[in-house]
């Protein structure tokens, strides 16, 4: 990866809550149009990493650069406008709005001027995730799977360069999971974004991603191809526990 090709650069990022170190010394570089899986046991710090990148939390140490620019301490809405969009582990859609209105929020407010025609951008995003038929349904009446797709569409409508997905498959059935995989692939192919994808379904990650990062107890313990990851001793220990001495 060329240095000028780097989209997001985390440099020695630390996040502490009181005495609890949740992220420690994290270095990650993400290039253009990558699809990266981010895995790790419960409580490893994956969601916290997303919250630090999107400025819901301020890192206690370290720097975050986006396209070479230091964005540490920038407000969350500015981060989105700069081109980092996300979804949430516990889905967060605007429940009293229709599907279309939800996506309009991303297109109108999230794009920081990149989207000229918000309505057609929103329509495109809706089609991309296959929810066109549910355009005028209120989110409160939608299924979990549709809400997760909607959240992705809303993020895509802001025309981001980097998309952070926090467990988009959680709670979905096998059919819905297959659909989600297709959507994630399509978003990457058609929108040219980079995707950092947190998932507990490791098999899906290994199949779809060309690069996988592993967090454990707030440390980055591995970063490589799926083939390298499955053979990594630290990863095996993290997932299977300490080997009996």
């Amino acid at each position: 990866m060329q240095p000028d090709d780097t989209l997001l650069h985390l440099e020695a990022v630390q996040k502490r809550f009181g005495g609890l170190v949740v992220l420690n010394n994290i270095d990650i570089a993400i290039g253009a149009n990558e699809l990266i899986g981010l895995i790790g046991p419960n409580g490893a710090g994956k969601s916290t990493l997303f919250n630090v990148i999107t400025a819901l939390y301020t890192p206690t140490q370290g720097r975050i650069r986006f396209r070479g620019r230091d964005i540490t301490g920038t407000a969350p809405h500015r981060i989105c406008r700069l081109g980092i969009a996300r979804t949430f582990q516990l889905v967060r859609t605007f429940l009293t709005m229709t599907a279309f209105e939800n996506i309009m929020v991303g297109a109108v407010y999230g794009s920081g001027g990149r989207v000229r025609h918000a309505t057609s951008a929103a329509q495109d995003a809706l089609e991309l995730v296959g929810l066109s038929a549910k355009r005028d349904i209120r989110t409160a009446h939608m299924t979990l799977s549709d809400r997760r797709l909607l959240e992705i569409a809303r993020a895509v409508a802001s025309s981001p360069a980097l998309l952070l997905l926090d467990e988009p498959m959680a709670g979905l059935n096998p059919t819905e999971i297959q659909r989600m995989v297709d959507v994630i692939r399509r978003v990457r192919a058609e929108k040219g974004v980079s995707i950092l994808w947190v998932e507990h379904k490791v098999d899906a990650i290994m199949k779809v991603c060309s690069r996988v990062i592993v967090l454990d107890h707030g440390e980055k313990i591995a970063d490589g191809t799926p083939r390298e990851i499955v053979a990594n001793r630290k990863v095996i220990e993290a997932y299977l526990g300490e080997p009996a001495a």
Partner: protein
Amino acid sequence: MLKQALPQRAWTAIAIVAVIALALVPLLPGAVDSYAFSFLFFVFLYAIMAQGWNLVAGFGGQISLGNHAFFGLGAYTTAILWTGNYLWGSLYDSHPDIYYFDPVTMTLGGLVAAVAAIIIGLPLLSKLRGDYFALGTLGFGEIVKVMFINGGDFTGGAFGVVAPAGTFDTLLPHYLVGLGLMAGVGVAIRLLMRSRYGLALIAVRDDEMAASANGIDVLKVKVSAFAGSAFIAGVAGSLYTYYIFHVGPDSVFDLDWMLLPLMMTVVGGTGTLLGPILGALVMYAVFDLAKIVVPDYHPVISGLTIILAMLFLPKGLMRSFAGRARAA
């Protein structure tokens, strides 16, 4: 689920016809001097207050308990500008009625309230928790009242300010201005809620974290809704000055100017366009009747009405009729 009883267009048509009908009421013989006429004036006044509260609380999800303070600020601004003749100089001598329903004076009443809202809204709304805001605005109301009591000659102390009464022998201008403002505020809020700003306001109400993660400057949206709410309350206070003339701390900073519009909105339907107006009409009728029928039990009866309304119409009149939350 209730079916959508009436489509949105029907509600719009009903609202337009109602406003036209109300505008024609003064033409009926004897109407202007009837009790119903002043009753309707107060319905308009409360409806405007309720719409103001609904903007920040119903659409924006930020529970303000300080709108009576903005009402009072608008009322005082009007009375002080008028009494001191701060605006019109020698024109006032040749046109002694110049301060009556003067758009400049009334707008300034709204602006003073809006500026106050921005000053207290910025610190209170940057806290994440909504109860800070509710309690903070309640405290603000008390502080403003004390400040006006201790304001010396400028605010007239505990007595207040008496505007130089001129030619008030008919309620007709009050009625028409009240009706016009109620309709105007309704149209303005409708346009606002259909604009991009409305999208942001609902997003913030529904989910602040998702709103900011999708590019919305949450603080800006909240503070501006609060300022808009205060502006509306300030203009209502200004209108009240032309009715009451004597603007005193106990009358215009009375908690009722916040509590009654709040109840009216809840009964009519928070977060709907016509709910506050419908609620103002129904609840003001109930309060008024209770006062006439059983003067001693008035607070109990109005309290009971609210409890009954919450029990049987938990979503408010508007939603129960219209079926859809944001239908009208």
